[in-house]
């Protein structure tokens, strides 16, 4: 492998590595968001309905 070939390969590898690091950062962020959404879902499920939010069962038909 010549010096030019080594440099060109290194440049393309650097581009690939930076894009990969970016994808990794986004993946970590998505993981965090997933945890936060689960936490919100748990909070929403545990929440008591307010009096005006309660509905009387209605007969349909």
């Amino acid at each position: 492998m010549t010096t030019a070939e080594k440099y060109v390969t290194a440049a393309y590898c650097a581009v690939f590595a930076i894009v990969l690091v970016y994808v990794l950062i986004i993946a970590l962020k998505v993981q965090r968001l997933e945890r936060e959404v689960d936490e919100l879902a748990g909070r929403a499920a545990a929440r008591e309905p307010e009096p005006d939010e309660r509905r009387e069962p209605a007969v349909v038909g």
Partner: protein
Amino acid sequence: MSPGRAQLTPVAPRSRISLPALAAASLVLVTLALVLVFFVVPNDADQGFSQRIFYFHVSIAITAYACFGLGAWKALVHLWKRDPHADLESYVAVHQGVIFGSLVLITGSTWAKISWGHWWLWSEDQLVLFLVLFLFYAAYFMLRYSVDPGPQRANFSAVYALFGVVLIPVSFMAIRLAKQAIHPVVFTRHGPNFGGWILVTYCVAQVAMLVLAYTLYRVELAGKRVDARVRELKEVLA
């Protein structure tokens, strides 16, 4: 909604092109560009193998300009129409521009080392002006995060992003206006200085980089929007 609770921002309109389709297109185009660069296009008569950096270096540079341009356009939309989504879109576009800008500097320095024997030449206007453009937009984040979230931060960021766009034509034209330059000029007023497989490969690489940048822009924007929505919901449910 009861008084005192946080307001939810309106949902952003959905794009016509789906994210998986964009990601697949990026993968296919980048792979095709790499195959053309390393297996199809012939060696340059003057620079030999090292000229193969050109295909990604130039397309990444033009993509970085496009990202900064998009950031400025979204900033203008924010200031002009008060679009509630434009500030975040401008921020993400500038962020993409800085990422692609760093790739331009890395690939450019590597090419300079092979061709000129130096990683960097301060006497080259094209290099220095691109660095100025890159640092200007890198400072955008310092400004943005030094102001508390809200309309003031959005306005400051938008004005800054809009000012930066002036540097794009200056950076692009620098090499054409310089009397003595060793940085090659590939696009003249008569068109590109190349043809055949070199032109085909360059065009594929350019489209690949633009599609890749747009895909990453959409991915980051989706993440930022979900993040903002989660914060709002946390306030509502608190």
